[in-house]
């Protein structure tokens, strides 16, 4: 059966891998439901002599929002400064500058091509 699966075709390979994972998920899920214990045993946390507040989520884990602002303010600050102050300024004239540059580049490309052609096939 496995020889029939053409792994050199990425689309087919992905398809079969997904199917296999889905089957695996269903089987594991069925096992979990069948073998799930009726009651749960509770054990106390071993903290090496420290108080429980050491692992309190409220005190030591930063919120998602803080992680987000950390990323923006520290890690990506320079990238965003450049993006917002140089490219996406919201000023119509800045837009036109960028757009005209692209227009100019295209026109230069066509003029350059013609000049090169004339030099290469002169006479």
């Amino acid at each position, binding site marked *: 059966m496995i020889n029939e699966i053409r792994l050199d075709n990425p689309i087919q390979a992905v*398809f079969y891998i997904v199917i296999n994972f889905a089957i695996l998920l269903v089987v594991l899920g069925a096992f979990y439901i069948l073998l799930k214990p009726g009651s749960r045993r509770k054990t106390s946390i071993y903290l090496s002599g420290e108080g429980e507040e050491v692992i309190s989520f409220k005190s030591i884990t930063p919120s998602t929002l803080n992680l987000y602002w950390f990323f923006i303010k520290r890690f990506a600050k320079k990238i965003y400064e450049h*993006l917002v102050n140089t490219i*996406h300024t919201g000023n119509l004239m800045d*837009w036109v500058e960028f757009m005209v*540059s692209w227009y100019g580049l295209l026109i230069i490309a066509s003029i350059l*091509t013609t000049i090169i052609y004339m030099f290469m096939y002169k006479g």
Partner: protein
Amino acid sequence: MLRQLAFDFTGLTVPLIATFAFILPLLSKIARNRLFPAIYALIISVIIVVATTTIYVEVSSSGKPIVYAFGGWPPPIGIAYEIDGFNAILGFYAGWIILLITLFSIWYNNELDEPEWYYTLLLGFNAGLLGCFYTGDVFNLFVMLEVLSISIYGLVSYHKNNPVSLEAAFKYAIIGATATTIYFIGLIIIYGWYSSLNMAHILEINIEIYEKHLVKGETGWESVIMASTLAVSLALWVFTFKSGLFPNHFWIPDVYCEAPTPVSALLPSLSEIMGVYIVVRFLYTIFPAASPIGFMYRKLVLSILLILGFIGGVIGALMMFIQRDVKRILGYSSISHIGLMFMILSIGAFSNDDNVLRIAFTALLTHIIAHGLSKVLLFSSIEVFIKSSGSKIMDDMRGVGRKYPLVSLALIIGFLNLAGVIPLIGFFSKLLMYQAYMSIGQVLPALGIIIISALSIPGYAKPIYSIVFSTPVSEFKYLNIKWFKYYLLILTISLFILGVVFISIYSILDNIVYDSLTTHGLMKYLHAFEETVYKLRGGL
């Protein structure tokens, strides 16, 4: 019989939609019912679906392009529509998206103070869009582009009491009008040298020149090289503006944000795709590698488009992350995805081998479908949250998704599809893009696709987290979304189904690309044109 029906639809669809659009205000005066324009537009949308589907089925099953010469005038004298596999499938896709947008607009109907004008503009847009897709004439393309553009300017500024909406439409219209004028100048140059405006006829002349130059070694083609490269340059600038490729993308966030939400959904799924389609038509059908622009220019320009696509992809992905307005996030997401589309269509810079083009354009078509469906789904679900929370700002929408589990599911699936998660169709389009570049040994563009996809993930996670998983900070109005939830459910399931049956979709799209954009496809396009000219001039 099917061929005849498809042929008739080719000629009738666009003029009929335009006629229906213009008589709508008059009929609305007679009907005096707020729901009348919506039902009227829905009926026409169903007709569009029937017409575009018939055309697509016929062209894909016969593998032969349809050429419809208006008024019986043989092209290039008269205007002709020429539909090969590529524009047939885009027309088919557009037809269904139009129906979805119309249904969305019906749900949005209460927000429209004068629905007859909204639907008139929407139908005008549909006529212009299908005209742009189906036409085989570069001047007719200009006319249809104007019809589409004027309708879209009107639709964007529809909430005329909102000054920001007017400003967004004004900025878009000013630069858009300049763009279409530039395209017109390009047409003057084309007509000046080729004495023709028919796409297939220009292709024929281009191949002839290329053969003379390459095979027979004739020189003195400076004027045609100058004319063709200049005309293509002007057209490219215009259509990169219409599709929103960096650096012509600045209009997108403002316009998406301030337009009525169904119009915001229509822009990335239809209007921008038209721009992408025309760029492909210009660089792969009218001016292919075997044309005067094949001398250096085409490769150079495609390389530049690849770089711009990458920059646009990265900028869009990064800018998404810092937005507070949920509609702006979708705007920047479109900039990123258009960047990806341009990256894959630029593959001709490295190889014009038919097998490579087949993978690349199959990837492009898949991405167009995946991205378009996702955007319609996302704008539709977001509108539910906007109405419920009374704001587009994500801070005010925190946790609103908890009130609507089904709509939240639609939102999550829509974003996951854009991010390219297995087994949704969005994954396969990115995989094919990667595969196309890897098949020619181009690691950098392939890596670029992965980088853009990875950078965009935090941008997609942000609205999912804010709208669905955050703890609600205020009370939200509960909306009874009635039939609209089924609409969202069907769209959500369709993204799954398209992913699961992708092997079949792949072979369909691959055949279409083979029949239209490869050397074999170009010959078919040319042959269909020549056959029509021969018949109309009295041949058998």
